[in-house]
């Protein structure tokens, strides 16, 4: 890698968005090039300053009230049936609104396709994700065996709060977690170690839109699933199927409403 290339991916490096290969390459370059290393240090310092010194503006209480009032007024003014009839087409009025519509539609399309597909596709996507993560060294973004560290980290990045528990006593040690995109949706991913095996557990709010994926083997990896009271659990690993199934059912059992470790935000 030369200086030009290092500079072109410098931002992604600072942001932790490089894959393992390019990360390795840029590290090699930075150890040998003091100019690029200095630039990298400057970028890191700037990033640190931005995060420490720049205000995150919080919505004033009056705005919360205004939005709620406007929402209530809207609800009162437009009967439910009319709201549904009007729904997606109003996007198409006006210039920039059309751009809006394109984004909203692609969003809808992506999410609707996910819902409409057999959930088995989720299993295939989950395995692909597991393989990618294992190869890319990005297996864990928050490394901790402490569920009280992993859970808030995930909750802060998702619009739901996955139950997290360490089952080291039963042989399944919590290594940490990461955020994954499976079929375009952000999914909480917990990483466990069982003997020499790594297990990825994908946790997402109960989809209830189709059957759970059946236990299966995809590309040599076993997939086991369970539905808890609030969450769907999908485990992917090379652990033997019976053990994996028991493990994922054990996790889903703990996923009980009201228990300290669970709940949707």
């Amino acid at each position, binding site marked *: 890698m030369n200086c030009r290339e290092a500079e072109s991916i410098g931002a992604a490096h600072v942001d932790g968005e490089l894959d393992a290969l390019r990360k390795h390459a840029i590290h090699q370059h930075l150890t040998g090039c003091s100019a690029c290393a200095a630039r990298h240090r400057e970028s890191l310092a700037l990033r640190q300053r931005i995060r420490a010194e720049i205000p995150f503006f919080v919505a004033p209480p009056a705005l919360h009230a205004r*939005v709620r009032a406007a929402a209530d007024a809207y609800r009162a003014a437009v009967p439910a049936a009319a709201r549904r009839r009007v729904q997606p087409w109003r996007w198409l009025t006006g210039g920039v609104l059309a751009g809006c519509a394109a984004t909203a539609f692609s969003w809808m399309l992506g999410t609707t396709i996910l819902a409409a597909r057999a959930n088995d596709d989720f299993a295939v996507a989950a395995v692909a994700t597991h393989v990618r993560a294992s190869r890319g060294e990005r297996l864990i973004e928050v490394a901790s065996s402490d569920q009280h560290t992993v859970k808030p980290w995930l909750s802060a990045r998702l619009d739901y709060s996955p139950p997290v528990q360490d089952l080291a006593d039963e042989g399944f040690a919590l290594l940490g977690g990461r955020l994954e995109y499976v079929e375009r949706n952000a999914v909480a991913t917990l990483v466990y170690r069982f003997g020499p095996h790594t297990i990825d557990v994908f946790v997402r709010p109960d989809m209830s839109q189709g059957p759970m994926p059946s236990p299966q083997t995809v590309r040599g990896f076993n997939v086991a699933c369970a539905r808890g009271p609030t969450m769907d659990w999908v485990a992917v690993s090379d652990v033997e199927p019976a053990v994996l199934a028991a493990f994922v059912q054990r996790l889903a059992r703990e996923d009980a409403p009201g228990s300290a470790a669970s709940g949707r935000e």
Partner: protein
Amino acid sequence: MSEHTRFEELVLPHLDAAYNLARWLTRDVSDAEDVVQDAALRALKYVGSLNGGSGRAWFLTIVRHTFYDWCKRNRPAEIAHDDGTAIDMAVDPDAVDPEQALLRTATAKALTDAIAALPLAYREVLILRELEELSYKEIARIADIPIGTVMSRLARARGLLQGSALLRATN
């Protein structure tokens, strides 16, 4: 789940994130409030189409679109002339109104001013990345640009900040 419940569960929790983005885009307290309120109403209308996925990213996309609509009506010059070449000309200093109480030091104020002075295209990716803490993938989707462009705009934004007179003066 009714639309209203969906709105309360999926959109309202992200009102702070929405306001922060609107505030950095408009650089004005009351304009930011107007944009957020408008965006919230749009979100309410279309929340039925949000089927799974991140409510936050979805809502921020709407906030951004609402801002650009608002900007077209109220500050057309900002979009038209925002080619990102002249950082010193890009902003009217009076439009920058950082909340003094939040700024602990003069250097923090200088940095805040320098970010507020960034051209819109760079400012928005920087805020989405550093304050809203979104991934390149999410930013690409929200701003409707390729991931490579997200990366190059972030690099340019940081480069502009490092070269900014506002910052150099205080270092």
